[in-house]
């Protein structure tokens, strides 16, 4: 009953927003849902596998370049074919990057994944003949939905695709979290040596999570490129990785948190940018506050006291606990 209720509320929300918002608001919300999906894919690694990777921009950008090149160089603009290509390319990338970077732990893992992002960013900037360098690839046409009729042209269409993307990524992460695989991951996060001595090949599980998370990020990046009809090195910039981490942390370790935090962060940033020249300053202060307050810890403490779920100190995450309190998930998102 509860599941049906949530589904009904989501569908009602979707229809209301889709019909009620103007083109601008729809676009911002679509970008927010894509950011949420990216955060969601990263939360699989950060929250459940305990691996705070900074390589997510690499997957996000690679997925984007995959469909961008497909559209611009090969004149192929089928949505499904594009997504399939993005998934395949990022799966291979995830396998290679995972094998190399999972040799390290802690701060070394962060630095090696950051370097991977910087590497691909360097390629995107310098390999002008393929990527167009800093100018990026212009002219990614709206994708066709063949064999379904039509293509994604209107803001409403993009909104639908972004919502579907967010839903799929969220569903995959939820299923993984509740599967045996997900439970083993959490076990490894809490004590790798314990799981290893229980006979689990911890490396293989972490690699699996890394690849899966990377593919989800790649698909999300493909959606972003279709939405913007453009790809440039900005999508592979490591700042994207950092922002995804912020979204994960704001998600407060809850299952649905990153999705909501992604939409909230995008809107806050959009509103700040249009209302004040000093939006970078405010953004910086938000980052500092999140670092000092640690939303996952706040949520954990509130649940322990079994008080009615209220917003943590960070306003951006305000809606998160209300939804997520019902989804059963351990709130510790510590590394």
């Amino acid at each position, binding site marked *: 009953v509860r599941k049906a209720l949530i589904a009904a509320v989501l569908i009602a929300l979707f229809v209301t927003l889709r019909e009620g918002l103007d083109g601008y608001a729809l676009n911002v919300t679509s970008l927010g849902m894509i950011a949420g999906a990216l955060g969601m894919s990263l939360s699989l690694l*950060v929250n459940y596998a305990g691996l*705070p990777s*900074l390589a997510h921009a690499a997957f996000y950008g690679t997925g984007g370049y995959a469909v961008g090149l497909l559209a611009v160089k090969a004149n192929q603009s089928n949505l499904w074919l594009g997504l399939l290509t993005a998934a395949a390319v990022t799966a291979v990338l995830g396998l290679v990057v995972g094998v*190399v*970077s999972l*040799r*390290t*732990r*802690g*701060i*070394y893992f*962060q*630095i*090696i994944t*950051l*370097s*991977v992002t*910087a*590497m691909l*960013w*360097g*390629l995107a*900037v*310098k*390999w002008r003949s393929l990527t167009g360098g800093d100018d990026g690839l212009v002219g990614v046409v709206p994708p066709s939905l063949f064999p379904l009729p039509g293509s994604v042209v209107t803001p409403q269409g993009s909104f639908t695709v972004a919502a579907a993307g967010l839903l799929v990524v969220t569903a995959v992460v939820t299923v993984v979290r509740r599967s045996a695989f997900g439970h083993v991951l959490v076990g490894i996060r809490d004590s790798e040596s314990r799981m290893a001595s229980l006979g689990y090949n911890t490396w293989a599980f972490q690699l699996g999570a890394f690849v899966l998370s990377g593919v989800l990020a790649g698909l999300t990046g493909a959606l972003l490129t279709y939405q913007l009809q453009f790809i440039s090195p900005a999508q592979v910039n*490591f*700042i994207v990785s*950092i922002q995804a*981490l*912020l979204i994960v*942390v704001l998600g407060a370790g809850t299952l649905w948190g990153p999705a909501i935090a992604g939409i909230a962060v995008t809107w806050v940033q959009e509103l700040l940018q249009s209302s004040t*020249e*000093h939006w*970078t*300053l405010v*953004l*910086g*202060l*938000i*980052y*500092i*506050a*999140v*670092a*000092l307050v*640690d939303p996952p810890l706040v949520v954990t403490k509130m649940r322990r006291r079994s008080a009615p779920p209220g917003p943590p100190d960070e306003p951006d995450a305000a809606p998160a606990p209300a939804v997520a309190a019902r989804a059963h998930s351990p709130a510790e998102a*510590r*590394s």
Partner: protein
Amino acid sequence: MSQAFGIVLTGLAFGMLLFLLASGLTLIFGLLGYVNLAHGSVYLLTAYLAIETYESTSSYPLAAAVAIGVAAALGVVVYVAFLRGRPRLRTSPLAQVLLSFGVIYVIADLTQTRYDGLAKSLAVPRFLSGNVNVAGAGLTGYRTMLIGAGIAVAIGLWLLLSKTSFGASVRAGVDDAAMLASIGINPERLFAAVIVLGFALAGLAGLLGSAFIGTYPGVEYFIILYTLPIVVVGGLGSLSGAFLASLLVGVGDALGKAYFPEVSLFVIFAIVVAALAVRPQGLLRRA
């Protein structure tokens, strides 16, 4: 021959500039376990301040005092406001990344507002430049001076760490901070001192670099992307490792840019990834 010489000289000078930044970064990490990704922002800010001070007063010593003083003061602020008594920020890489980026954004906004986002560089003072820009030959004198300054700082830091009791405490702290506290040395004061030292070195880099690579919005990312590999390849907490790695990256970067411009960025980070994959804890492991 003379072209290759110029490239190597530029590379060495750039390497020394990177060493000024990497040495502070590696000391702070070694002792506190804090990776200050905002180290490049200290450079960004102090380089701007040095240029502004020099342009308005024509006094190089005053510019130096402002750059290094502000950097040290910023170190105190970061330590007191964010790190003192917050063990979580010393153990959680996730929180460190977010905090660092908060600081990066705040400094980026402040400098953007004050300097309108303009790229600036310091006109090299005559007494520092030797031969001034003879068409194509570049600022050879200034680069030589920069190399000298880097070596002097390296020697100074080495003496400080190996010959003084302060240095002994720092080295002991890098190895085992808890043990240090148990023999009666206040680790908090040591932490503060090392942060101030590291930030002051970044301020010195801002002063010297302002006449070399200059400063512009985004230079903080450029710097962190170059210094992190150095710190990692040299081994986190290792000063001698940072020195060697700085020279390698500086010269390698200059050669790469001159001869393989298409892949130079890619290669630098490929080296880091390879180094970490082979030696997951860095190449050298002693302070």
